């Protein structure tokens, strides 16, 4: 595994066959986009009122 985990997925450029690099690169890009599709909605949801109130109440205390 020397060097194979030195870069985050999506930035890989490992020595080896061209075919393997193409598959790795395609998979990394696909994985990156797929994970963003799954998790971005969650990150972009508005902060629940209850949680915001909890923080603001503590700020004022």
């Amino acid at each position, binding site marked *: 595994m020397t060097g194979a985990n030195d870069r985050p997925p999506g930035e890989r450029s490992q020595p080896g066959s061209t075919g393997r690099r193409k598959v*790795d690169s395609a*998979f990394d890009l*696909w994985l990156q986009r797929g994970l*963003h599709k799954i*998790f971005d*909605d969650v*990150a972009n949801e508005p902060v629940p009122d209850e*949680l915001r109130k*909890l923080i603001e109440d*503590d700020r004022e205390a």
Partner: protein
Amino acid sequence: MPNSFHDQVITILPKLRVQALALTRNRAAAEDLVQDAVCNALSAQASFIPGTNFPAWMHRILRNRFISNLRKRRDTTDIDDVPASTFATEAPHEDRLALKDLGKAMTRLPADQREALVMVVVQGMSYEALAEATDCAVGTAKSRVFRARRQLEAWLIGDTPERSDDRAAAARASMLSRALDAQIADARRGHRVA
């Protein structure tokens, strides 16, 4: 006062949610976990040293709370018995099936690998930041991301790339490649229109 402790808590909430979902694999549990972590952070704010790494401090609180909850529930709940629909998405195109596979595969990864992969790939965290946020060595952080990515590739493409003679693996790699090309073409068309 900008960048006060409370402002920093509000700013980091989206990232905490992503971390919580990666750990719990369940949206409702993730919301509860974020709320618990925020409560813990507010109670412990006196122990935070201004000028030090607030995101790492906050991510560690959430992680410790997750581990603590896990220990409490272990006697009664099988943490791995989570519906595969946990990471269900509303993807509109033909890649919905592949995304569904990805969601299922994510639920099968160990929690620490899933968390590491999401924090690096989705949140763009460096390995050093990941190590600080998850209280481990940089080498461990790298290894978790690498193993997660490798395992997903094995499950989703069919095998590790060494077995390139595997027809199913080649076919799935080709499918991924075509889906990617289509997405890139869509993105380029979008840019031109914009």
